[in-house]
């Protein structure tokens, strides 16, 4: 079989590029561009740092460096536009001079900023959609490794939660609350025009110039069948400034897990006391181990704390060189990150390089190349997950009387076990050893490349052709030596297991676009865009699992006695997408704005009967403040009303979902022979298609008092229909489900953003704040199906998505009379056991089935999310505080099914000491009697009920940074800024289930997973508090 990986299906796909190349090279027209240098300052003479210089009508531009200097290539008669936040921009027609110093008047007009939008850029003032941009400046100081972390709290309508503190992982980004039953809900990430197929989690944030988040249909519809979850456009740093600029950024610090927020568990004495009482209450002899609890005084073993790395270092270096020469612009960013995690034996390293370059080979032709290789290495012990999956959960509930270390301080090597007579029914490994010895490492190499050519035969008409490639190789190695395990009840020595996995992704994209700009009679501004693109993706994976090693030191494949065939496999995933796109933008005097866009996508994922989808949108805007009648209202410096409507899709439906597949691993055994077996494993659906979202957006931009206060409001309403839904069908068919486009969810919400300049002058204080209210309701599921159950959730028509579902606890039965006179569970309700609300009033408490007493008992979605950033500068000092929060959401605390297990096999929450022991000693009313055995005590832990629900509202001070800039150049540097920063400084919350109120993950049963089961805390890796010192050098 030929190697299809390198076949790539390119065929005629790239014809456009070749054609364009020939076209460009035949071009002879040459115009001379001059290199212009100069300085931009405010009217008070102070240099303006980061001021933008753009050449009107092109995408060429530059920004000023730390001293206000710039350099740019410009041709005669081109118009240079100088702009800076808080200053009136100024246009200058270039007439051949070598230097140009510009002074801008403070005016606070921010509206002429150029904003990157899909397939181009636009002047902010003229945008009709809901687009929010965030620049490098707002991101730069935060000592976090992921872009998602940097964005937390800064974007209205975007909820960003860090579900786990594992380095490099766990950012959950949802734009406008978008979700789906089973299709993916992550936004589309587009890096320099290339929709990447991986995630941005590992991208070096220092490579980023700015980020635009596209929220409404008018902004996203050019991304067609991939737009429904919103689009994040990432633009990397390009050559700018004047000449060559070198800067070096470094920070170093340490990470900690604060004591506040940790789950309060019993210590050794409290636990022994509990066990003593357990036997006393059961009127059984107390095992000798518990007869004298005070013997454990001073001998507590805090298993959770033992897994915590007390001061985990983090260090980052970034070298950035930008150069802007005549006819060439280059930018290089090289980064090294080295992070230890706050759980022992966590290691995260990233080496990254990005080289962006562009060359004007004539005054009509520009070519450019971006190359960004990257290597990440990650080793994280199996920390996260349910009981028996993640060592953090395991450690939490391990008996504090079990020693962690030998008397000489070394880690206990023996299998950790009390006799069964103590009720120790599960075997425990030593979790510290497990964290130290389990190998769970991922090495990722990633190469992202773009090559493009632009050809502008006549002014205003531009052809662009690009080829983009992404190669991502992930190498995973797991080794579980015989001496360690992350599972519970697996005695040591256990069977050593190795897993090797190699995943190779390759994606290419060819895009060919033409744009035409024309301004007619000064007043009519028109831009047309047309394009044709093809994208292809292929993933090949192999996995080999081997077990039973004679020697843990040699975890090779050949060193294993057994190859696990069921977990040894290879796979291929492929998709292809062909698209046509067009957009028209028109405005009259910059006052009446129109934007219409359409994309047509053909996808290999869609069923044969439904292969092409069309995604149109239209946006309208009216700059009210430009009307004559508004001149009487000087307080209003700018006002725009805008609206948009469009239809977009979500194609995250799986690559082969439309096909009826044959599973050829259903092998039979006959005597000693194995015979290959095959069966149909899924039903075909040739009509399968994308999820369809129709979105309306109404917005208002209002700037007051010379832009001292800038206010933005958006209302949106979305209807997502044709949900990819694996409809459960009667299993008499031999199948569990049928993949169909079915059902509908309605979303709506309000987003408010406000930027204020509270003080100007010597002390400059600005505040950015945002708040968003996102709501959803399930309009329809499948015919005849009005609900989907998960382990802890229900998604039900007429209700918001994925609500917590369970019994309502009413405390404990007070006494026998209470049992007799109340609804109960036949044979399992006694004085001191959990009393449950008989929701259906039939007198019997039932969990599941036809007489279910479960009801909706909580909501994992917040009432609102908000963020606030304050920035104060005084002379050479700067001070910045970022906060963000979530209000009204709840979390299901999974671990209490272990940590409140009344049978005593696990360590318990400290407050279980205060449980029901007798009518006169009923405790908190939260935990029942320990008497009666698992069938009785098991109700309150096995029947999911309202006791599991915790308020997870929080407000977190994400970052506090104090910086000082040395403006006087030294021999070594041109300028230097030093700063101290604290990340995740304070978390204000009532959440009691663990250290991270943002934790959220799903279970593994029907109706679980992804969106259907949000807001379950399975005891994930803590998000650390990080203290750093940093320096930014400019040379």
């Amino acid at each position, binding site marked *: 079989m030929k190697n*299809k990986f390198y076949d790539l299906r390119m065929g*005629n*796909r790239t*014809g*456009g590029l070749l054609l*364009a190349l020939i076209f460009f090279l035949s071009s002879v027209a040459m115009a001379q561009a001059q290199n212009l240098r100069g300085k931009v300052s405010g009217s008070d003479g102070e240099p303006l740092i980061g001021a933008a210089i753009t050449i009107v009508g092109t995408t060429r531009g530059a920004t000023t460096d730390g001293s206000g200097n710039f350099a740019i290539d410009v041709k005669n008669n081109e118009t240079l536009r100088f702009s800076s936040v808080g200053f009136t921009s100024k246009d200058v027609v270039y007439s051949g001079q070598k230097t140009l110093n510009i002074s801008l008047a403070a005016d606070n007009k921010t509206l002429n900023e150029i904003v990157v939008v899909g397939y181009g850029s636009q002047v902010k003032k003229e945008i009709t959609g809901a687009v929010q941009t965030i620049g490098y400046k707002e991101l730069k100081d935060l000592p976090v490794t992921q872009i998602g972390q940097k964005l937390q709290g800064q974007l209205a309508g975007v909820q960003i939660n860090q579900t786990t503190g594992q380095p490099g992982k766990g950012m959950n980004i949802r734009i406008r609350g978008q979700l789906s039953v089973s299709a993916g809900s992550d936004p589309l990430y587009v890096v320099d025009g290339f929709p990447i197929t991986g995630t941005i989690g590992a991208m070096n944030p220092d490579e980023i110039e700015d980020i635009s988040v596209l929220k409404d249909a008018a902004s996203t519809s050019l991304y067609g069948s991939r737009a429904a979850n919103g689009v994040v456009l990432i633009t990397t740093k390009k050559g700018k400034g004047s000449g060559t600029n070198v800067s070096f950024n470094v920070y170093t610090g340490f990470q900690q897990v604060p004591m506040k927020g940790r789950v309060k568990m019993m210590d050794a004495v409290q636990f022994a006391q509990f066990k003593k009482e357990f036997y006393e209450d059961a*009127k059984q002899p107390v095992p000798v181990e518990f007869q004298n609890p005070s013997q454990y005084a001073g001998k507590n073993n805090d298993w959770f704390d033992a897994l915590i790395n007390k001061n985990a270092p983090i260090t980052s270096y970034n070298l950035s060189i930008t150069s802007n020469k005549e006819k060439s612009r280059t930018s290089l960013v090289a980064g090294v990150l080295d992070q230890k995690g706050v759980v022992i034996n966590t290691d995260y390293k990233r080496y990254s390089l990005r080289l962006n370059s562009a060359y004007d080979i004539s005054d009509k032709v520009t070519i450019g190349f971006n190359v960004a290789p990257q290597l990440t290495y990650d080793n994280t012990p199996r920390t996260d997950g349910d009981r028996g999956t993640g060592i953090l959960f395991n450690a939490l509930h391990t008996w504090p009387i079990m020693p962690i270390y030998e008397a000489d301080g070394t880690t206990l090597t023996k299998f950790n076990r009390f*006799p*069964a007579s103590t*009720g120790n*029914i599960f075997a425990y490994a030593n979790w510290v050893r497990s964290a130290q010895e389990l190998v769970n490492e991922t090495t990722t190499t990633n190469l992202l490349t773009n090559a493009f050519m632009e050809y502008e035969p006549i002014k205003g008409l531009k052809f662009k052709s690009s080829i983009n490639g992404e190669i991502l190789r992930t190498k995973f190695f797991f080794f579980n030596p015989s001496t360690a395990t992350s599972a519970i009840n697996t*005695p040591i020595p256990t069977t050593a297991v190795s897993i090797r996995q190699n995943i190779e992704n390759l994606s290419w994209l060819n895009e060919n676009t033409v744009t035409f700009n024309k301004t007619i009679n000064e007043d009519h501004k028109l831009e047309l865009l047309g394009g*044709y693109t*093809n994208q*292809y993706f292929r993933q090949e994976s192999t996995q080999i699992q081997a077990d039973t090693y004679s020697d843990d030191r040699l975890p090779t494949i050949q060193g294993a006695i057994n*190859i696990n*065939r*069921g977990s040894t496999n290879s796979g*291929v995933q*492929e998709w*292809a997408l062909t698209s046509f796109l067009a957009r028209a933008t028109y405005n009259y005097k910059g006052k009446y704005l129109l934007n219409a866009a359409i994309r047509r996508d*053909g996808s*290999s994922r869609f069923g044969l009967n439904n*292969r092409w989808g069309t995604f149109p949108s239209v946006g309208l805007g009216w700059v009210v403040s430009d009307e004559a009648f508004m001149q009487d209202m000087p307080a209003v410096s700018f006002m725009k009303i805008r609206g948009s409507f469009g239809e977009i899709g979500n194609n995250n439906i799986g*690559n*082969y979902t439309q*096909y*009826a*597949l*044959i599973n*050829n691993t259903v*092998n*039979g*055994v*006959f*005597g000693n*022979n*194995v015979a*290959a*077996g*095959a*069966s*149909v494993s899924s*039903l*075909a659906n040739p009509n399968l298609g994308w999820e369809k979202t129709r979105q309306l957006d109404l917005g208002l931009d209002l700037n007051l008092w010379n832009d001292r206060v800038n206010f933005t409001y958006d209302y949106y309403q979305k209807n997502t229909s044709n949900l990819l839904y694996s409809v459960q*069908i*009667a*299993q*008499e*068919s*031999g*199948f569990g489900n049928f993949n169909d486009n079915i059902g509908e969810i309605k979303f709506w919400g309000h987003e408010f953003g406000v930027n204020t300049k509270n003080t100007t002058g010597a002390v400059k204080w600005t505040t950015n704040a945002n708040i968003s209210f996102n709501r959803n309701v399930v309009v329809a599921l499948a015919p005849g199906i009005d609900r989907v159950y998960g382990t802890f959730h229900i998604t039900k028509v007429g209700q918001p998505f994925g609500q917590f579902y369970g019994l309502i606890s009413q405390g404990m039965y007070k006494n026998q009379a209470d049992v007799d006179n109340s609804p109960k569970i*036949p*044979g399992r309700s006694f004085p001191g056991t959990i009393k449950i609300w008989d929701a259906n009033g039939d007198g019997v408490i039932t969990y599941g089935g036809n*007489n279910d007493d479960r009801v909706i008992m909580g909501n994992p979605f917040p009432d609102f999310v908000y963020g606030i950033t304050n920035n104060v500068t005084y002379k050479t000092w700067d001070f910045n505080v970022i906060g963000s929060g979530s209000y009204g959401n709840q979390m299901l605390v999974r671990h209490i099914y272990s940590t409140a297990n009344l*049978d005593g096999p696990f360590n318990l929450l400290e407050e279980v000491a205060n449980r029901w022991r007798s009518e006169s000693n009923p405790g908190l009313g939260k935990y029942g009697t320990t008497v009666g*055995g*698992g*069938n009785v*005590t098991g109700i309150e832990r096995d029947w999911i009920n309202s006791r599991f629900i915790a308020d997870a509202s929080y407000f977190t001070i994400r970052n506090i940074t104090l910086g000082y800039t040395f403006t006087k150049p030294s021999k070594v540097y041109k300028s230097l800024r030093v700063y101290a920063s604290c990340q995740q400084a304070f978390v204000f919350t009532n959440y009691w289930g663990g250290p991270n109120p943002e934790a959220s993950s799903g279970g593994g049963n029907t109706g679980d997973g992804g969106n259907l089961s949000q807001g379950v805390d399975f005891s994930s890796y803590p998000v650390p508090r990080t203290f750093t010192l940093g320096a930014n050098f400019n040379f």
Partner: protein
Amino acid sequence: MLAVGLTGCTESFLDIAPETSLSSVTFFKTQSDFEQAVNACYVPLRTIYNDRSWLLSEQHSDNTYYARNTAFGATEQQEDLADFSIPVSNGLTTNTHVLNQYRQDYLIIARANQILALIDKADFDATAKANLKGQAQFMRGFAYFELYRYFNKAPLQLTPVTTREGAAAKMGTAADLEKIITDDLIGAAANLKPKSTQEAGRATSGAAKTVLANLYIIQKKWAEAEKLMKEVVAEGNYSLIPDYNNVFSTSTTNKNNAESVFEVQFQEGSNGYNGTFMYNFLPRPMLETELKTLSGTSNPQPQTGEGNNIPTPNVIAAYEAGDLRKDASIGYITCSSTLWEGKTYPIIKKYMKTHSLNGNHGMNWPVYRYSEVLLFLAEALNEQGKTAEAATYMNMVRKRAGLANTTATSQADFRTALMQERRVELAFENKRWHDLVRTDTYKAVITAYGAEIKANPFSYYYQKGYTLRSNSFSVIEKYYPMPADEAALNPNIK
């Protein structure tokens, strides 16, 4: 502009079929395709016999019980079956074992339906085709027979489902099921090879006749049953193995032996074809040293949780003095760490065979043995008044067990003796509950059995001071209620 002329090959660019999986469009053409499809029909039997049958047919009778571990919860699904207290509401139950048994049977049926719908049109060797078609008919008939015995009604799904709407089938009555089972098994008996030429472990014509005879006996069609069983005896492919100890397969050998009519095939090893039922049948908690005496593996691991399918004092007492089958069927193990003060539990020795890897063994499960053929024949003859002839067949079974000829001479006495013989000969082979149902003795026997446990919970492995749950022995019904989860998906299920 550049795009013009580039769209010609767009459709082929977008045609991407899965590379690592075949699609049903291209499958079901060749002999090899149908062989693979037939092999897949057998696969659900592994799940059924490893995980469910013994819970629904043996522990749901007076032969076995669970060994309560009061330190362990979340065991009510099994306990409800043993205690005759499964939740029933509107003729439906939420018991997961009932649900899973039901679903696995329909998985067999769906796979067989695929074959039976297409095999006649496929073009390949007629002999091979007959043998393949016969196996599909056997598997479908067998699966419907299981549903018939458990539920006495079931949805009728006889063609492959291709649409969402087609999944929910109409309910069939007992008579509908009897007709399908009869037709399929008559067809299977005609199409299948006999044991002498069939690959070991596959369904044979003799197996098809035995299942059909089992149905006839339930239907009290004694003459038809007699005829079929005599054909099987006359085949000469089957015999009783002289020593009852050697009747049951080990983890690697003695499979599909001379006495085997049909057995579920397991294979030890890490390929996933193994069984684990022996471990389910262990009293718990059990130390690794104690386990090693039974499993013989190099890596025994301590067993926690609650043990199931523990022989009852009731069944132990059922063996006549001198019955060699008693020691061959039942052994004992002492669990020093259990909370039950008795410490020494009986275990099903038939299935306790040493093997290599902890939790992974290859013993086959006996579904039909030749001794049952003889007992079916004896029963069919006796019910037609031919008691003397019947005795010759039952005495063959008794002789092998080291027992004298039966003393029963009247039809009624013989009937009692035969059911007693079935109980001990076929103990722990998932026959007991079905025998109680078809002889309509289930209510009396189980009621007395419940009273026996309640009177002396300690002898039924309850720790001192503990007793049965209060709802025990409150739902003694002839047939299982239909699974509630399936009723929610198929409005025809009531």
